[in-house]
């Protein structure tokens, strides 16, 4: 019963999302706002400024290197969290830790 109700709640969400999609620029539109500001600069200057023909690498590792640094920190923290959650380093309770 409750499950039916939750599925029913999805219909207004679909209407809202479709309405939002109708206001977006069409896929492949070169005059969309996403192409107006910083992307043309990257496409025009990335190769001679960073020496990378792959623009994605230039943006990822050079223009937005600080982003990537924070992201690597997130991954590292996730690895440590996995170790801590599963108690791999617990020497006091080897194998079965019952919890």
């Amino acid at each position, binding site marked *: 019963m409750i499950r039916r109700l939750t599925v029913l709640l999805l219909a207004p969400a679909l209407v809202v999302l479709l309405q939002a999609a109708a206001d977006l620029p069409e*896929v*492949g539109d070169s005059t969309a706002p996403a192409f107006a500001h910083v992307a043309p600069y990257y496409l025009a200057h990335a190769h001679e400024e960073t020496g990378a023909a*792959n623009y*994605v*690498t230039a943006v990822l590792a050079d223009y937005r290197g600080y982003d990537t640094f924070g992201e690597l920190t997130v991954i590292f923290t996730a690895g440590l969290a996995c170790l801590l959650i599963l108690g791999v380093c617990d020497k006091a309770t080897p194998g079965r830790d019952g919890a």
Partner: protein
Amino acid sequence: MIDLLGPLFLLLMVVCALAALNAKDLLSAVTIFGAFSFFSAVYFVVQDAPDVAFTEAAVGAVITTVFFVCAIQRTSEDDQ
């Protein structure tokens, strides 16, 4: 013609996602989820994003599936 390829693969992704969520067995759900990841990788290739497609194919279809299989194998031992 090319404009239809993107929506086609998106539709396949929706079908795969529904199949993965409704599969009886958890292991087969994980397998279909790997297929879902692969279709998303193909979609990214069609949409001129080879970097993202490469990452999605390596991460979604290999590493995530292996993680899921390991976790399911460990959690299904004595599930009453």
